[in-house]
């Protein structure tokens, strides 16, 4: 007797396990490691994040007063968040969106 029979018939009559993803968006879990952003009011351009980044996705340019972040190089390990003394880096639970090009996100300090 084939042993899967019971399971298969059960699946056939019960609801599919599929999340109809792009049409139904489930609530993101609070711990999800999503896209990063820099709060430039807090950032003091210390380059700590650049130093710890394992994949060199962050470039801090103190002279030009900006941070260049490459989401297509980032590992989402969140070492930068853990190591930021100023707590200038924050994450969201939204995932980084795919794109036709490799974007570079630039965060600049507003000129006074």
């Amino acid at each position, binding site marked *: 007797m084939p042993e899967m029979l019971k399971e298969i018939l059960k699946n056939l009559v019960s609801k599919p396990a599929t999340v109809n993803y*792009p049409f139904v968006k489930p609530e993101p879990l609070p711990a999800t490691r999503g896209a990063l952003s820099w709060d430039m009011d807090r950032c003091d351009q210390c380059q700590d994040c650049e130093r710890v980044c394992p994949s060199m996705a962050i470039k801090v340019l103190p002279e030009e007063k900006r941070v260049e972040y490459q989401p297509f190089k980032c590992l989402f390990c969140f070492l930068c968040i853990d190591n930021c003394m100023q707590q200038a880096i924050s994450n969201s639970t939204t995932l980084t969106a795919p794109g036709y090009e490799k974007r570079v996100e630039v965060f600049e300090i507003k000129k006074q």
Partner: protein
Amino acid sequence: MKLMTKARLKSPWVLHFDTGSCNGCDIEILAALTPKFDAERFGIVNIGDPKQADILLITGPANHRNKTVLKNLYDQMPEPKLVMAIGECACSGAIFHNCPNTLGGVDKVVPVDVYVPGCAARPEQIVDGVVLALQKLAEKSEQLEKKEKKGE
């Protein structure tokens, strides 16, 4: 929308090739095909044959040995075709940026249409990427049809 374009959008068959990723993205591609995400809803079938595939999914940073294989696979795929780089290392090398035997991103070997970020790219992101890729496929399909008309 024309029938042919619509059919092309509804049935993207994918070919998966690993160019040296850590397997994280590969298993997530497989996870995208399994019940929870079920990519077959969009007509996606994981076909093992480059001659019958529409979208080439590449994971991994590409190295000197597999770049010829990758190029071969790309050349064997018939038009209209698309290339998706899945995961950070396929996009730009990421963690393998200073590994001596990697090229740092598959776009150095074949033209890439859609970049999917994430380490490893999640099934949600892969599905989003496919949706983006389909928009590009529609453009390509229309261009191809115009070309055919001109040819006649």
